[in-house]
C-alpha cells in the first residue's frame, strides 16, 4: 500500500539522484563538470549516487523498460 502511494515519487527521486551524480561526476564520463574542488570534497560520500548513476547508465539501452511502467495508458 505504501509503495503504491510513493511509486512515482521514488522514481523521481531515483532520477534526481542520477542527475546529481552526473552533474558532479560527469568528469568521469567526459561531461564538462563543475570545478574539481567541489567534486573532490563530496566524492567520498557519493557511494549511493554513484551506484544509482551506474545502474541508470546500464539501463539506457532500453529506456522504455525504465519509464513506461509509470504511464497509465489503458
Amino acid at each position, binding site marked *: 500500500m*505504501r*509503495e503504491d*502511494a*510513493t511509486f512515482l*515519487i*521514488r522514481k*523521481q*527521486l531515483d532520477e*534526481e*539522484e542520477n*542527475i*546529481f551524480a552526473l*552533474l*558532479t561526476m560527469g*568528469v*568521469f564520463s567526459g561531461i564538462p563538470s*563543475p*570545478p*574539481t*574542488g*567541489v567534486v*573532490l*570534497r*563530496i*566524492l*567520498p*560520500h*557519493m*557511494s*549511493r*549516487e*554513484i*551506484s544509482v548513476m*551506474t545502474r541508470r547508465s546500464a539501463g539506457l539501452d532500453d529506456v522504455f523498460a525504465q519509464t513506461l511502467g509509470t504511464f497509465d495508458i489503458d
Partner: protein
Amino acid sequence: MKTYFFLGKGGVGKTTASAAWSVGLAQSGLKTLVASIDPAHNLGDAFAVRIGDRIMHVGDNLDAVEVNIEDMIRAYLDELSAKMKNTYRYLSAMNIDGYFDILKNSPGIEEYATMEAIKKFVALIGYDAVVFDTPPTGMTIRVLAMPRVSLLWTDQLIKMRKRILSTRGMVENVQGKFEAEVDGERVVLSSSEKEDPIMQELVSYREELRTLRDMFSSEQSYVNIVTMAEDLALFETKRIIESLGTFKIRVRTIFLNKFFAMANPPEEIKGKMEEQEGVIKRMKAEIRGIEVKDIPLLRKSPRGIDELLRVYSNYLV
C-alpha cells in the same frame, strides 16, 4: 592580517618585487611570510638561499616557502584515494586508481590546488602579512576568480541537493526512514540537511569559498601587477585590471620594472626610452586610481636580504 599578491608574466621581476616587499615589511616589524606558488620557483635565487617546501626562516621576522604544487596535488589525491577505497569497498563500476590519474590532468586541478595552498597560508596564525609570488598571470587570474566561480556552482548543487532531500522526506512521511542497499550494506538515506554528509560538505565548502572571496576583495588584500613599460604590456595590464574588476578585486599598484633610466642613452636605446615615456604617460592617464611606480633596470639582479631591502626602500615604497 594583510595579504599581498604580485601578478605578472614570467621574467618581469615578480619574484624580486615580492621578495623585496616581504623584506621591507619584515623590516618594519611585521611578522611576514613570503610564499612562492609559482611552479617556476625563483624565490630561493632572490634570497640567495635554498628554499624548500617547508616554511623556513630567512631573516628577522621573515619566513619563506616554495610550494610544490605537483606534490600538493599528488598528496591530496592520494589522501582522497585512500578515503575512497575505504568508502567504496567494492565498487564494481570504477577502477579508482585509474580515475585519479585522469583527475591529475583535469582542467582546474592546478588552480584548485593553488587555491588550497593560498587558503592554507592565509589560515596560519602568527603572521601579520603574507606575500605571494604568483604563477603566470593567466593562471593567477583563474585562481583569484575561483571562489566566485565555484560559489555559483556550489549554490546550484546545494539547491539540487535540497530538492533530493525534500523528495526523500516525502517518501519518508509515507514509508518511514528510507533504507537502501549500497555496496552490500543497508544504509539509511537521510532526508535532513544536518544528517546528509554531502549537504554538510557542500555547505562548509561554500563557507570557505565565501571567506576566500571576501578576503580577495577586502581592504586587507593588496593585488599588485608587475610589468614592463612596453606597449603590449600596457594592453595586457589594462585587461588584467578589467578581469579582476569583474571579480570585484582591486589592483593597488602597478610596478613598471626594468625601466631604462639613463642620463646619456646610446642611439639604439633612445627609441625604447621614448616608448617607455609614452607608456608611462598613457598609463597614468588611462588607468585611474592605481599607483604607478617605476623600478629602474638594475646593474645586476638583487640577491640576498640586504640588496632586496635596498630595492624596497629605494623604489617600492
